């Protein structure tokens, strides 16, 4: 049983506020992901839960009990560090057994041996148990770090960007393996990453943090399909969402998005009507954009010129210049366009997003 609640947690280094007024509620056995750029305060939050970083103010509750004043060893948390933090002078076996040898746990030697071998089997480490960390590859070291945390079946399992130092191929494999291993953790998992695909793949729920604040908390599809503001929309998706600034104006009492000569009709909604005249920006995801050579009949298009086309294996990314904006669109690998060829950017009306320019707050999401 391990649900974690953070109430008004704040962390300051001198006058720099790394984490400001954080309120999070993580349910038992949940795979909770904190996603954000570097410097968003996500690792600091994790270290505050683990007790390595003291909380400047606010409370951290584990199953209702406050733990923010406990020292790390008094909290039933295990942590996988971004740099693995293996003990260089101990063998792999001793690294994994180390937590169980802690005096307060009083585990007998063969209990330790059983637990270590069990974990070694799950993570496929039985072949290099007696080697030193320095002689291991990145992937192997990462498994040892996982094993060291798994062996004690903690209430809370903290993971600080465990995959960020692996090469692309190994990262995908380990991500899938962690997802497959999820049941064997048997604890609440708090996973920190800057890679949106890890968040979407692994998270039951995702919290997106930016400069010490939580922008949105939700399930992967909530966060991807209905971002609460422009920042969240930009964070998720590679290549990221395209934006075009403009204003909302009335055209025979229908709200319309205008930018210079371009006019794009918007669905009738009281909220949009209230924002007539306001600066807004239109959001379009690359996979929702079609590049046509002929002018589409629907009003949902923009004129553009091909800037550069990049083939990426199963698909290609075409960068097109729309006025002085650069839009990215996904297209078929074998679709060839020539440089500066005039193209029409077309999309289906339900794929449009609209955000307020100043606060970035969402006005129109996909599908409504």
């Amino acid at each position, binding site marked *: 049983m391990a649900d974690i609640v953070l109430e008004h947690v704040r962390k300051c*280094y001198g006058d720099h506020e790394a984490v400001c007024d954080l309120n999070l509620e993580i349910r038992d056995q949940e795979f909770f992901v904190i996603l954000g750029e570097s410097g968003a305060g996500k690792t600091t939050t994790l270290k505050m839960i683990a007790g*390595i*970083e*003291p909380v400047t103010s606010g409370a951290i509750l584990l199953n209702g009990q406050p733990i923010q004043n406990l020292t790390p060893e008094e909290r039933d948390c295990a942590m996988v560090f971004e740099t693995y933090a293996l003990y260089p002078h101990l063998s792999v076996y001793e690294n994994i057994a180390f937590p169980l040898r802690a005096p307060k746990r009083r585990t007998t030697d063969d209990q330790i041996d059983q637990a270590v071998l069990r974990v070694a089997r799950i993570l496929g480490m039985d072949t290099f148990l007696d080697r030193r960390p320095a002689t291991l590859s990145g992937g192997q070291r990462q498994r040892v770090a996982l094993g060291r945390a798994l062996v004690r079946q903690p209430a809370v399992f903290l993971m600080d960007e465990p995959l960020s130092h692996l090469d692309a191929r190994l990262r995908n494999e380990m991500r899938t393996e962690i997802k497959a291993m999820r049941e064997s953790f048997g604890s609440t998992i708090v996973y920190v990453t800057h890679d949106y695909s890890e968040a979407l793949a692994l998270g039951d729920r995702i919290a997106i943090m930016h400069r010490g604040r939580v922008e949105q908390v939700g399930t992967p599809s909530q966060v991807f399909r209905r971002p609460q503001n422009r920042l969240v929309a930009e964070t998720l998706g590679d290549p990221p969402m395209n934006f075009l600034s403009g204003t909302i104006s009335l055209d025979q009492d229908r709200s319309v998005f205008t930018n210079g000569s371009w006019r794009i009709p918007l669905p009738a909604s009281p909220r949009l009507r209230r924002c007539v005249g306001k600066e807004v920006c239109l959001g379009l995801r690359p996979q929702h954009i079609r590049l046509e050579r002929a002018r589409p009949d629907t009003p949902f298009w923009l004129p553009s010129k091909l800037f550069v086309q990049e083939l990426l294996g199963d698909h290609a990314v075409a960068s097109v210049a729309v006025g002085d904006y650069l839009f990215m669109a996904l297209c078929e690998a074998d679709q060839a366009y020539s440089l500066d060829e005039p193209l029409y950017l077309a999309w289906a009306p339900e794929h449009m997003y609209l955000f307020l320019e100043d606060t970035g707050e969402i006005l129109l999401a996909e599908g409504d």
Partner: protein
Amino acid sequence: MPDHALRTQRPNPPHRGLPYLLTLPALIALIGILYPFVLGVYYTFTNYTLTEPGNIRLVGLANYIEIFGNIVFWKAFGLTFVFAASVVTIELVLGLGVALLLKDAFPGVRILRSFLIIPMMIPPIVSALMWKVILLPTNQGVLNHILGLVGIRPIAWLGDSATALVSLILIDVWIYSPFAVLIFMAGLQSMPKEPYEAAQVDGASGWFIFRKLTLPLLTPSIVLVTLFRLIDSLKVFDIIYATTKGGPAGATTTLHIQSYFEAIRWFRMGRGMVYLFVLWFLCFVFSKALSGLWTKVLMR
């Protein structure tokens, strides 16, 4: 090292009194340093002489006034700086030169590197005695003998007030120039390789690279060598005591040696401590300034 602006690690959470408990033993030792220091400063304001320890009387600044007015003090002051300045300059130039010669690896460079540490590991007093033998004035000294082979008449070295200071500088350079070589070698090794390759590709000449790239990048090492060598040569003692003991005719009496004479030879502890306090103040000011400069240069 000096102040820790460059230590960017955030410390562990403070554990109530634990840090103080841990440093307590060292704190006691610290008092072991401060107490005599304060006692020494107190003596500078008294007429304390070792022969009559009974009557210590506060005499205010009398010692200072008398000493600052006395030509012997300024002679020693001047000598100290001449010695320090020449030692530091020679060791900087020689150290950098030899380090550059040892820069690119060639067979045997490791052995030469380990030979470098030998002079520094020998007690300075012993090195001075070694040189005393080598610098014997008549043809008996091996250096005079070798110079004689190339037609130079024997030099009195430590025996002649004209050449005594030069001989001491020679001894100091022998002992501590390897220190400068090692620091510069470490500095050269820690320099980034890529800018040199970029300069090669851009077609820069050797001298251009040295002036515009190597020297600026070596500034931290230069400041570090200056810091350690300047302070140590200001307070040099062993080398002079073993050879000339300040002679001949006071030609090599530095502040540190003069303080020894005042306090031990003529038992005038009060006056001896004034010399020491002045020398300490000089060393403190230079060490604070240079270590601050070192941190600043390192950050850039």
